[in-house]
């Protein structure tokens, strides 16, 4: 850029990495810059989020009436399958790691880029190809297996486009494996001088733990889905009881991935929230090492608990007991984190800006979701609650109440860094509060419905459940509005927002020492780190 650029020009064009790599569409689609790739991901996953959201809206509309008059059973099955597949693999899994993680991790450790920039871009293209397959399956008539693809239904009976979706998820799985690989190698190799492991922000620890899970769990899903595809195509019968194969074996493989996948969704959220809390109360995190190691132990223990999804699938009683105990164990490091966040806040002066409202909302909703997870981890209770709306409410509290709240909190917190602009604080606070209210209104009634015995995955229900279902659908409307609001005020801030300056939150951390938006290679001089991550004057 030449020095004669006027400030008015700079305002209309952005600055830093937003213009330095070129302004054409192609310069974005061929970029190696981790910041631009993070934005490519953000655009893509936002699109998928609203596609999955449309499916959710259809589900909630259908459930206003007990007779399922809007969607036929078959269409309903396809709708919740699409909702699940899109929200899990095309939104939640890549949400924080591929957007905020991509954008922030090199900045936070003082690196110029990721270790493998080309691989990073390749991961995004894999994501898009996987997305195309999944959308194609929808356009060709959808899939009705549920996001879990349980055999033998998915292999022998379903007449829908299972193979297309399985290929889509297989491909997007490799996108997440390669993102994890990149984040791990970057954290190991690219840290700035003086940035040793216990000086890393907790967000980086969270990304590291998440990446380990991505790399070790996702290949299991990939091979398992390949076997489903091969069984449909070529009659390979590993899950086929007619050949002596075992449908339960599929469940073991699937949950060996899909339970750890829950931690792929929640660990990054924990990392984001740790940053937001420290900044919102302007204090050092309480128990830094406990926070870091609790994330790694969650990642590790998370591999040993998959059987809690199979208490009623015919596994032995002893296996059930062991998986139950291990599931209780994994709650310990999670509880450590909640207590440490609360202790960090204790007697502090809390600044209730929008990111902090999201973070506090996260703590409340995650705690409730985690506690009800313990109900489900107890075999005796789970036998009654399994396959009811109680389970639906539980995992939405973790994934939507937890992960999505943290994701949006992070988007708001780092928005000034990403775009160089401030958003309207008042509207952002209203949206955050509305989201908390709308979320509880949608999903708390589902706990009660499940407790009263309403099963999940049916388009009809008994008339006595109607009141709570209506309440839940009203909540979903509120929630939908609160999700649409940021599109408008964040979008508006791109053009009209005040310039943010390098550090609008008076935050610590290397990402705030460079300009907003950062230059193409992040820092004009490689930073030298001399202290820990949260040196707020307490």
């Amino acid at each position, binding site marked *: 850029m030449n020095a004669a650029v006027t400030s008015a020009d700079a305002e209309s064009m952005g600055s830093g990495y937003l213009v330095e790599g070129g302004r054409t569409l192609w310069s974005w689609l061929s970029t190696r810059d981790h910041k631009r790739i993070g934005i490519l991901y953000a655009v893509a996953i936002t699109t998928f989020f609203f596609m999955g959201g449309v499916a959710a809206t259809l589900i909630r509309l259908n459930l206003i009436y007990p007779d399922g008059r809007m969607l036929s059973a078959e269409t309903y099955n396809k709708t919740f399958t699409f909702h699940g597949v899109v929200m899990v693999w095309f939104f939640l899994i890549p949400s924080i790691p591929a957007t905020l993680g991509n954008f922030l991790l090199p900045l936070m450790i003082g690196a*110029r880029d990721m270790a493998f920039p080309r691989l990073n871009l390749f991961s995004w293209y894999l994501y898009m190809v996987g997305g195309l397959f999944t959308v194609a399956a929808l356009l060709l008539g959808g899939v009705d297996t549920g996001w879990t693809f349980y055999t033998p239904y998915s292999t022998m009976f379903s007449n829908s486009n299972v193979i297309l979706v399985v290929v889509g998820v297989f491909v997007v799985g490799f996108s997440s494996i390669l993102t994890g690989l990149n984040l791990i*190698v970057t954290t190991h190799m690219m840290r700035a001088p003086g940035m040793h492991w216990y000086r890393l922000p907790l967000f980086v620890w969270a990304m590291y733990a998440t990446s380990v899970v991505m790399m070790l769990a996702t*290949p299991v899903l990939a091979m398992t889905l390949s076997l489903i595809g091969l069984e449909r195509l070529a009659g390979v*019968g590993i899950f086929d009881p007619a050949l002596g*194969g075992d449908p339960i074996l599929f469940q073991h493989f699937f949950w060996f991935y899909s339970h750890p996948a829950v931690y792929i969704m929640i660990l990054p959220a924990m990392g984001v929230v740790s940053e937001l809390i420290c900044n919102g109360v302007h204090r050092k995190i309480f128990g830094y090492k406990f926070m870091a190691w609790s994330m790694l132990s969650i990642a590790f223990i998370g591999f040993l608990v998959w059987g809690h999804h199979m208490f009623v699938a015919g596994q032995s009683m002893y296996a059930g007991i062991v998986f139950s105990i291990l599931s209780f164990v994994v709650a310990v490091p999670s509880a450590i984190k909640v207590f440490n966040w609360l202790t960090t806040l204790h007697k502090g002066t809390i600044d209730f800006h929008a990111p902090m409202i999201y973070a506090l909302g996260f703590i409340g909703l995650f705690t409730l979701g985690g506690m009800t997870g313990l109900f489900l981890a107890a075999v005796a209770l789970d036998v009654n609650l399994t396959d009811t709306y109680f389970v639906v409410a539980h995992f939405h509290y973790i994934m939507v109440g937890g992960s999505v709240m943290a994701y949006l909190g992070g988007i708001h917190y780092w928005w000034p860094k990403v775009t160089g602009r401030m958003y309207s604080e008042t509207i952002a606070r209203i949206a955050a509060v509305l989201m908390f209210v709308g979320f509880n209104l949608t999903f708390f009634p589902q706990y009660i419905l499940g407790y009263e015995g309403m099963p999940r995955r049916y388009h009809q229900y008994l008339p006595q459940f109607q009141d709570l279902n209506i309440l839940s659908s009203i909540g979903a409307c509120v929630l939908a509005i609160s999700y649409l609001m940021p599109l408008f005020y964040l979008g508006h801030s791109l053009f009209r927002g005040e310039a943010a300056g390098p550090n609008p939150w008076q935050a610590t951390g290397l990402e705030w020492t460079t300009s907003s938006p950062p230059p193409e290679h992040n820092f004009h001089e490689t930073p030298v780190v001399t202290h820990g991550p949260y040196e707020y004057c307490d």
Partner: protein
Amino acid sequence: MNASVPDAAVQQQFDDAPQQKDAAVLGMWAFIATEVLFFGVLFAAYVVCRFRFPLAFVAGSARLDFPMGTAETAILLTSGCLSAIALRQIQLDKARQSAVLLLVTALLGIAFLVLHGMEYHDEFKEGLIPGIRYLENGPGAHEMELFFSLYYVTTGFHSLHVLIGVVLLLIMAARTWRGTFGAHYHTPIEITGLYWSLVDIVWIFAYPAFYLVGGAG
């Protein structure tokens, strides 16, 4: 990207060549960890199915071409050894020898694929391929079909990895011949060699699991 000679291959995000090399090697090890879990699913399924139907697995294994499988094993292990020597030669700055060794490694990989293709062809003639041409019937035929399912999926995915490895080795051989690499810079050869070892190791587990359980019967 356009710095002078020793740094020519150092990309902008790295400080120096050793950092870039360590990153590449760590990346390949991490990828290998992923691959172990990828194939691990098949070996786990193998254990479950064989535990359930030990006799069908013995019967199925006896139908495989044991001498051919053994020859393939010898070929693949030899090629693994040669790729290690190729790395040693380039470390000693002997680019021409290294290039030839890499080429021979790739040719052995192709030989492996050809022999395995011949095996598949014979099995097709005998009607042992589930879903495509499976002519066995009578008691135990279904359970044996399970054995062959696992055999084809495992060796099929393995052969795909061999094919990718052959392509990588041919590229490395050509680049080494043209003098791209030397004692100062040979990271791509090193990580290709690492990948080729993964291909070897998967086979070292697959060979006894499929070919050696039917011998005594």
